[in-house]
């Protein structure tokens, strides 16, 4: 599964994208955030306030209770500031 990070999530994790093998224990996007946060200090900093993080699964906005199934790409990013 491809994971993408944007804006300060990209900067804090030091990663713009990576491919991971999803552990069996991780069912939802919220659980994925907790699992990623446990990796190292940078990831912990990136996900320190999971409530503020926006999530997209296969380029559609989803919530933290979204169940990952057949997902190709998950993206994490701050609230958007376009326009």
């Amino acid at each position, binding site marked *: 599964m491809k994971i993408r990070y*944007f804006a300060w999530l990209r900067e804090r994790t030091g990663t713009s994208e990576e491919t991971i093998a999803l552990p069996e224990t991780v069912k939802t996007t919220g659980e994925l955030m907790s699992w990623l946060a446990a990796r190292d200090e940078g990831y912990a900093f990136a996900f320190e306030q999971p409530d503020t993080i926006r999530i997209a699964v296969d*380029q559609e906005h989803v919530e933290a209770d979204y169940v990952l199934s057949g997902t190709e790409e998950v993206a994490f990013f*701050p609230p958007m500031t*376009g326009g």
Partner: protein
Amino acid sequence: MTTSSPIDFKVRVQAEDFEVSAETDILTKDRKDIGAIVTFTGLCRDEGGMLEALELEHYPGMAEAQISKFAQQAVERWPLSGLTIIHRYGKIPPGENIVLVSATSAHRRAAFEAADFLMDFLKTQAPFWKKEHLKDVSNGTWVEAKALDDADAARWTLPKSK
């Protein structure tokens, strides 16, 4: 409440600048049924001379898809004759264009409301992030999302009398 099928629209996400008049000329060319053009242009402000440039990061693919989703909602909700949305990414110096929404219609209210609606959703729902690079600071700062922008977007989910 229009019975005609919604029109096609144009969405572009690009690094290059755009020319507003060229875009509106395309929308009005060879047409005499357009009564109103509403054009919104968003520009990079220099924040009192402090700003060196704004850096716009985006999520390629999702940016186009999200903008197209809102454009589709707009052409279904309002009787538009034409709609063009352009959003830039990359480093943009003060005074340059960032975003364009141009809506044409037989009637002014449709054009105004569609452009206003689209800007509110581009601000809050399209995957773009602005980083401010100030002249006297080495590191840029990410622009924080504004609650006011969310409130603006929420206006469009209220029941409408029209």
